[in-house]
């Protein structure tokens, strides 16, 4: 956990000396403890404990980003690998733990959770706050061969993803294409290969992992979808009351993005830059 109490105690001591003559008097309307002393500081050499979703296909990328965030703040990243008892969903980024379980993890094991999908609407769950995104993974429409979509084609989508919600809205309004739901990206890939669906919506790192980065060899291609598909954006999740640390990480992410550091890390891991 971040080292919090030493700076607070030091600040209180300084305040006590400076306020010495006035001790024993309380001024109405003036807080007994100055508000700025309630802020915690992160100092060089401190640690930030990050939890890593080891079920995610980009877990190692997330690890590298966590280290970069810590480096930029002149602190050390301590990483807790969240290994779920259940085998991970292949090619995915979904957490294997439920929100209450994740709450216990972030309470007991770490300050922040890497790899949290940033919702386009709302905040889920309500006890979290999520930083700005440090990475956007494109969502692609992959088809067999090189043919584009034809009216009536059925597209496989992953339940619980923004792309699926977009596709459901599209198919409901235009009825040009079909939609077949999956809860497992590997089964979607299999269904595409088997001809059970004509195309699939899949996040780019998942498709890259499934095909070894060689779509043509896998007999697939990517075509332009009829609607722009929102990318999956990943941020850092923290408990809602961690406003101080969130501010620091937000600042670090902004700097790492602006300096091209995250682009370099993405390139190292073969991800779209």
């Amino acid at each position: 956990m971040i080292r919090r109490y030493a700076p607070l105690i030091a600040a209180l001591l300084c305040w006590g000396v400076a306020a010495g003559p006035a001790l024993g008097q309380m001024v109405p309307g003036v807080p007994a403890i100055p508000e700025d002393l309630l802020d915690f500081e992160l100092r060089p050499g401190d640690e930030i404990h990050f939890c890593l979703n080891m079920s995610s296909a980009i877990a190692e990328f997330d690890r590298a980003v966590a280290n970069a965030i810590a480096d930029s703040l002149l602190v050390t990243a301590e990483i807790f690998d969240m290994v779920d008892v259940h085998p991970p969903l292949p090619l995915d980024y979904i957490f294997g733990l439920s929100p209450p379980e994740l709450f216990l993890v972030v309470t007991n094991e770490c300050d922040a959770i890497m790899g949290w999908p940033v919702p386009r609407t709302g905040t889920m769950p309500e006890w979290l706050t999520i930083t700005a995104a440090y990475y956007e993974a494109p969502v692609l429409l992959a088809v067999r061969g090189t043919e584009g979509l034809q009216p009536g084609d059925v597209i496989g989508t992953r339940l619980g993803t923004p792309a699926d919600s977009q596709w459901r809205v599209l198919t409901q309004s235009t009825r040009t294409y079909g939609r077949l739901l999956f809860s497992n990206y590997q089964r979607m890939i299999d269904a595409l290969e088997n001809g059970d669906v004509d195309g699939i919506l899949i996040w780019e790192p998942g498709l890259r992992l499934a095909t070894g980065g060689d779509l043509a060899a896998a007999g697939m291609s990517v075509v332009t979808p009829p609607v722009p598909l929102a990318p999956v954006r990943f941020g850092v999740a923290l408990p809602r009351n961690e406003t101080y640390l969130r501010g620091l990480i937000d600042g670090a992410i902004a700097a790492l993005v602006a300096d091209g550091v995250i682009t370099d890390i993405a390139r190292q891991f073969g991800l779209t830059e």
Partner: protein
Amino acid sequence: MRSLKTLLLGSVSIALLATPSLAQDDPFAGYTPVTDAMLQNPDAGEWLSWRGTLNNQGYSPLDQINTGNVGDLRTAWSRALSEGNMEGTPLVHDGVMFVPHPSDVIQALDATTGDLLWEYRRQLPEEGLPFIIVTRNIALWDNLVVFNSKDNFLVALDATSGQLVWETQVRDENSWGWTTNGPIIANGKAISGRSCAQQDGPGMYDSCFLTAHDLETGEELWRFYTIPTDGAPGDETWGGVPNDVRHHVGSWITPAFDPELNMVYFGTSVTSPYSKFYFANFEDAADLEQQEFLYQTSTLAIDADTGELVWYQQHIRDQWDLDHPFERYLVDTAIAPNPDEVRWINPDLVPGEERRVLTGIPGKTGIFYSIDRETGEFLWARETVYQNVITDIDTSNGRASHPLDLIPTEIGQQMLVCPSAGGGKDWPAGAYSPLTNAIYYPLQNMCMDSLLTDTDIQLGPFVFAPGEENLGTVRGISVETGEELWKFENRAAVMSLVATGGSLLFGGDLNRRFRAFDQETGEVLWEQILPAQVAGYPISYAVDGRQYVAVQVGSMLLSGAYLGLTPELQPGSGGNAIVVFALPED
């Protein structure tokens, strides 16, 4: 036999026997096997099942402690319990108390002192287990203590030593699920449901089912799937949704058993995602509102011998995580609902006729139902706490109607949904008293601001129900007339209850208060402040002619949701213990 493993002591578990000193008698010398007859008609001083009796009434006939002397009640003993979330129920037989702790720890205690007799500590995998490790109840049969373990086994221990007798793997050890409830015992069978997968994954498909096991051998006798697939009855209600995205309709509270009808009554939870927007095929809100997705949010009457579905009634067609798994009360009573208070009455009902009913509040909505438990016929229903998810109930069959503006059909749609996903009613149980022919309920005045996001419905933040400032409310409802007998309001959320033959009702709250109410009036006759949140299911029992009242306190699920609305109350977390009360000895 399916995946039956009979293992001797030491391979996967640790049983610690507290050896009595030479001067002590063997505490189990007088311990008698628990028979089905005893379970179906227990002695007054015993607490043999989760709710005392198999009809889930939560009633003890003991009357040594009564309205006249409850003010003299004192702590008889208390004892610390293991860490973790706990919402447990002790059982008592022949002077021995069996206590479930978090993390699959079971202890046998001297019920008069709390002294340890033995302890079983299951060896769970060190990493990666689900963190929700509540065990709400265990069961007794013959010389066995039976429970559902967190690693998906049904486990039987020797009641006199804590040693493992047999264990049967019920579900793939990789299968996601929180089995927080124990079995009910139905003529030599352990019957139970369980939570099940919220998402896909190896071992998770087909993880939603009820089971019966032979208590002699541990062999599985039948299995009933709570999500029908592949042409089974009810499959058509899913509108062609692929099997592998049908998730999460489980049964996470212990059922009731009627030995005469030989039927077990389960309640079920909801789908995942909760909102059907994400997976249903629908034209508009009116179309989606009609879709059932069986057997979510239903009462299921199951033949105890065969596992066949005899009848079912679906209470709501959920979109908002309003589970319906809670305790069903089996009561034989005259039925004469008062139309001044009871909003929905079956027109064919003959006022005053005797019925064998399944009654009470089965789900988070707080709606109180009366159903003929032999046929499934809807008799009557009424509201309790404020709710806005049901606009009407068809009085001929119990089918609910839902407001179309609360059917999520558009991303970004905002809704105030009442009650919240934490109730209304939730896992804290009520209690029935034959003295008043009423069920008393701990309920919460809570709603939730909901939002349809692009991945799931956001259920919260939780807010007070309109016009309410007190979160908790205890209400008595007549099972004959449906009339509300009284209502007690409380700032803190209120927890489980037990009714006794002394015309008392015991129950606590999140702010550490444990109270005795007068069943007739709701007057608080006695109150104690305990060390921690009153988290468990209280019971009453007697040993050597002395009546006791026991309750577990400490950490539990849901407390954060409740305490968030009453921030001035700071009862603290932890402090797991069992506290036992009795009148002073002469």
